[in-house]
């Protein structure tokens, strides 16, 4: 995607050195704003110290400390974003496709603005594609980030287990596919990655849309059942069925889901009819 290229190019050529300050890594325009706030606070602190107003001096000192630590946090988040976006070792993108990165992509490539509210908490904002302003606090930036973990490895291990047992004995599987699938999907919200990322070479959502194209177009599958959140296995079993069936097929290549059995029956009936006519 063009956005990906843009972000990677930005981090490849980022114009900040090892000694960059947390106030300057978001672009000149933001540095000016931050410096204005800080210099104003330092001036007030100096005045309070000279006037021996201990309480006021402490107040300004705390404000400067707070601003400093918040901007340090933001610097840390920018670093984390760069690593997850493929700036780390190996260049693999670690963000799940589930994550909507439109805000982070813009803000962390210096296309956003930093302002401060009345309590001197930073407010970050960008202008969206439709011209709307999207604002977030620092603690909200990472709230919806979904980073890929060991989901694919867990699934593949189970699939290989099933495959091996299929080859080596006439016994049933030595683990409960449904229970393990359930655990695998619900573990630390792993289902978000199972919905949207490539698992064992396949994308669930693509398969789902492909298999249900008619039902989607006819409105039989309603809009609220298409949102990625609607596949949360706590309330819905479509994701569970998909992965449990794949595991069952690894153990038994002849395993058929209900819809596949219906299709097979249809084909057999059609074949019989043609044979009878001949």
């Amino acid at each position, binding site marked *: 995607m063009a956005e990906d290229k843009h972000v990677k190019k930005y981090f490849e050529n980022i114009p900040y050195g090892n000694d960059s300050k947390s106030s300057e890594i978001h672009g000149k325009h933001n540095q000016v704003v931050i410096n204005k706030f800080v210099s104003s606070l330092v001036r007030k602190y100096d005045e309070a110290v000279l006037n021996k107003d201990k309480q006021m001096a402490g107040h300004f000192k705390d404000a400067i400390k707070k601003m400093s630590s918040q901007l340090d946090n933001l610097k840390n988040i920018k670093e984390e974003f760069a690593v997850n976006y493929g700036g780390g070792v190996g260049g693999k993108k670690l963000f799940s496709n589930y994550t909507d990165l439109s805000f982070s992509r813009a803000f962390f490539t210096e296309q956003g603005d930093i302002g401060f509210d009345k309590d001197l908490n930073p407010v970050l904002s960008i202008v969206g594609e439709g011209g709307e302003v999207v604002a977030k606090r620092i603690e909200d930036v990472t709230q919806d980030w979904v980073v890929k973990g060991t989901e694919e490895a867990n699934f593949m291990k189970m699939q290989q287990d099933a495959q091996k047992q299929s080859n080596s004995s006439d016994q049933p599987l030595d683990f409960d596919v449904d229970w393990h699938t359930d655990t695998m999907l619900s573990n630390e919200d792993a289902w978000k990655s199972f919905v949207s990322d490539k698992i*064992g070479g396949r994308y669930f959502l693509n398969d789902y849309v492909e298999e249900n194209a008619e039902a989607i177009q006819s409105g039989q599958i309603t809009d609220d059942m298409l949102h990625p959140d609607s596949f949360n296995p706590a309330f819905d079993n479509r994701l569970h069925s998909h992965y449990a069936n794949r595991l069952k097929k690894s153990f038994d290549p002849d395993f058929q889901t209900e819809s596949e059995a219906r299709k097979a029956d249809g084909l057999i009936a059609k074949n019989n009819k043609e044979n009878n006519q001949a």
Partner: protein
Amino acid sequence: MANKNSSPAKFLSALFGGAGRRREQRAANEDFGNQMDAWEDTKMKNPYAGVKNPYANMENVYEDQTVDLKAAEFAKEQSQQSAANIMQNLKGAAGGSGVAGLAQVLANQGAQQAKGAAADIGRQEKANQARAMGESSRLQTMDREGEQKRDMLVREGDRMTEQFDLDKQSKMLDISQQRKMASDQAIDNANAQMDQFVTGAVTSGLGAAMSDIRLKENINKTGISKSGIPIYTFNYRGDDQVWSGTMAQDLLSMGRGDAVTTTSSGYYGVYYSMLDVDMVEKNK
């Protein structure tokens, strides 16, 4: 702070501005990546796929479905395109939040899908499915014994192919996990540096620490740094918090004006990041 371990100088070394280092790393990875791509594209064919049933000359009506992988692949691509079109149409027509969310995720997947046109295991499962359907109807019309022998050979070949794919997938996963671990280690290291770096003081990079002797009292010399800079304990006038640090006036007299700045209020400030002295809070 100017502590060497927690200096900003180390802070972004893993990422920011490391363009040259990353280019070197990528060049090394590129060769590895090419080899991985070639390996990924390696396919094992079923050695028994061409075996025919010597006992029956009947046509397998499902042959195309089971062996025509190119057609299946093409159909899959077509269908993915059609899925994208469906989403686009629905998004434009209904504008529902569900479809919009789905389209967002599909769009995110788009870039990655272009890299791998067909999914090995997906194809394998689809072949299994088609074979299962074919099996049901063939049993009714073909000679059972001969077909069974033929089928067993084909299945054996399929299993070998499937095992090959799974082994390959497993090895690739191992490699990707090793990469992930290396990446995690790099993040841990960076975080450790960050932990040391975050001290919350005014000196953390926002500006220079106020180190003018005129603003301080209860000044006691406690030592000298390796580069000869005197170190003191003191508190700011009107504040009983005790600090350890240096004096801007000392630095000026030592010819270290490069580490001294004049603040907007006219008092001197010191860039501790340029010195081998820390400015640290002492216990009250």
